[in-house]
């Protein structure tokens, strides 16, 4: 750590000296005010709270919650639910829930808000959140976003003398049998986005999921598992060769964990996947939860996401140095098609059901 710090200081110094400094230190003007709020909340509600679906290896929540714990003394334990499971748990548990805040795919966050499990709250920095990524009342809001990509373990493919796939169509080749995986889309929001990306890329739309279903049926032969848990580690270890997930997770594997990982943006195109949160209606620690949500939109938290290769929802906090590292092996980000959260909302449940019927339960 010491050495790493020194090196990064040196590098920073050099960058500054040569005038290339693009790491803009973002001023967090309201920090003093926020600290007072946090202190009051800590006094009233203790020093730990619960976020449903805080998976350490997803969107670097491990790093974010660790920073929050070490810097501000609030402990947020990991929780492995997944988007849909989180919504199901909140709907079922209602007032007996232990959750204070919940994190999901934004589409599911909006669904959950409609089911009445969120209360309205507008965190600090509310105005900076793009309008299509928040509920006007503050019942849900996106915190960051990624892009659906192939996360490829090149070692696993090299062992079998296989090339890195470039397109959705490549994945259907029989030589990739047992090497491809995506998580269970009825549990994980990102897994749902992954199969929806296939649908959009292959000519489907928010009204028509037939191309997607047909594709997934064929892909089934090559799939290793539909995991109920995140496949981050299996894919980093090489247990899984090609994992369909958000690009940020792949870049973290590559740059932070030092895995033999490449990220591929499929040639037929893909979609972005925004992720959102909400304040739980029955939160037992509402003050802490509010302070935490405020912090998530601060330059600090947004900056952590930017540095761990997730696009902060407040784009001004993105860093150039991280962006430079976000280079897919194949494909380019120009291929990302835009589908709004609102449009996805109508199709999410039918598509999930179709997947259950045609693939999982077939």
């Amino acid at each position: 750590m010491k050495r790493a710090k020194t090196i990064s200081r040196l590098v920073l110094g050099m960058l500054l000296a040569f005038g290339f400094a693009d790491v803009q230190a973002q001023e967090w003007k309201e920090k003093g005010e926020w600290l007072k709020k946090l202190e009051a909340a800590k006094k009233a509600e203790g020093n730990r709270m619960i976020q449903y679906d805080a998976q350490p290896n997803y969107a670097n929540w491990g790093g974010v919650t660790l920073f929050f714990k070490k810097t501000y003394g609030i402990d947020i334990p990991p929780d492995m639910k997944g988007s849909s499971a989180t919504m199901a748990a909140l709907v079922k548990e209602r007032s007996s829930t232990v959750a204070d805040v919940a994190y999901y795919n934004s589409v599911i966050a909006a669904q959950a808000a409609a089911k009445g499990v969120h209360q309205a709250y507008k965190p600090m920095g509310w105005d900076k959140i793009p309008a299509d990524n928040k509920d006007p009342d503050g019942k849900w809001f996106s915190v960051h976003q990624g892009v659906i990509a192939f996360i490829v373990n090149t070692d696993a493919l090299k062992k079998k003398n296989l090339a890195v796939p470039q397109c959705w169509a490549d994945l259907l080749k029989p030589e990739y049998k047992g090497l491809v995986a995506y998580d269970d889309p009825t549990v994980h929001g990102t897994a749902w986005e992954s199969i929806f990306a296939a649908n959009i890329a292959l000519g489907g739309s928010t009204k028509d999921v037939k191309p997607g279903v047909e594709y997934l049926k064929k892909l089934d032969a090559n799939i290793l598992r539909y995991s109920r848990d995140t496949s981050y580690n299996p894919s980093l270890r090489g247990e899984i060769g090609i994992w369909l997930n958000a690009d940020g997770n792949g870049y973290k594997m590559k740059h932070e964990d030092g895995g033999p990982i490449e990220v591929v943006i499929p040639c037929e195109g893909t979609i972005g996947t925004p992720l959102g949160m909400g304040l739980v209606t029955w939160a037992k620690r509402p003050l802490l939860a509010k302070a935490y949500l405020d912090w998530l939109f601060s330059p600090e938290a947004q900056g952590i996401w930017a540095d761990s290769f997730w696009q902060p929802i407040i784009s001004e906090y993105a860093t150039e140095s991280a962006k430079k590292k976000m280079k897919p092996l194949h494909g380019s980000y120009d291929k990302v098609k835009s589908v709004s959260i609102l449009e996805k909302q109508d199709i999410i449940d039918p598509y999930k059901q179709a997947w259950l019927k045609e693939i999982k339960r077939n």
Partner: protein
Amino acid sequence: MMRHWLGALYIMPLTVFFVAVMVYPFFNMVFQGFIPSQAMLEAGSAMSTADGEYIVTWDELTLANYLSVFTDDHIRSGLTLSLAISVIVSFVSIFLCIGPAWLLVRKEFPGKRMFRAILTVPMAFSGIIIGFLAVIMIGRIGAIPLITDWLFGIPVAEALAYSLTGLGIAYIWFQIPRATLNLESAIRKFDWDLESAARSLGASPFQTVRYVLLPLLTPAIVSTMAVTFAVSMGSFGVALLLLKKATVLPLEIYTQMYSTLAFELSAALSVQLAVVTVGVNYFLRRYGERHYAFAS
């Protein structure tokens, strides 16, 4: 033995505990199983309060949850796989464990206690640990494929863990102590003189096995199956880590509870799982006991 109010008094705490923690929750669960699930309520015309919670009236209670084991192909396949794997694994683990059990009863050898102790190790290992061990041993980059690939150039058992065979091996793993200890205690109760008598009377080895040993062993096998079957039926940690599309009933209960909103369905399935498991266990145990009385 005497009849005395003190006996009832001493047993009272235990009874209260079991009623509070097992019997009452179980009947509560049976009742929950009749309540239409959230999805059904949202689709139907049930009343909902301002808070979004539904009020279910008596006439809305439904059998649908209990019937889903027949109507839903996926759930039925889960039950079938559960039963099939429990039976097959029981037979295989009895086949594998009868040898060690016999050695433990009939032979003296150095390190016997150690041998026995090692066979007991999987006892405390939950399904989840066994699933992990299966992945690191016979996963896609498990130890066995890696080592055989390095030695012979052919990865043996690659990704076996994710197949039904791999699932079976993992199940056998946690049955080892249960099968061995039960068989051992059953074999200990044998009348071994019968076997040597049969042999000294000139019975061929085959005849000895067919007419003396097998009938003697049957109750032992049955009572062992009672245990192994029940444990296999209830296990879900292994399936959670290893299965792709297939499902076992406990895993389906977990899925219904956490990925869908059908908490009531999971209650109904839990009741069915419990009834099948406890029923089969009880029947086998009784059968074994009856034949013990006869054999000894």
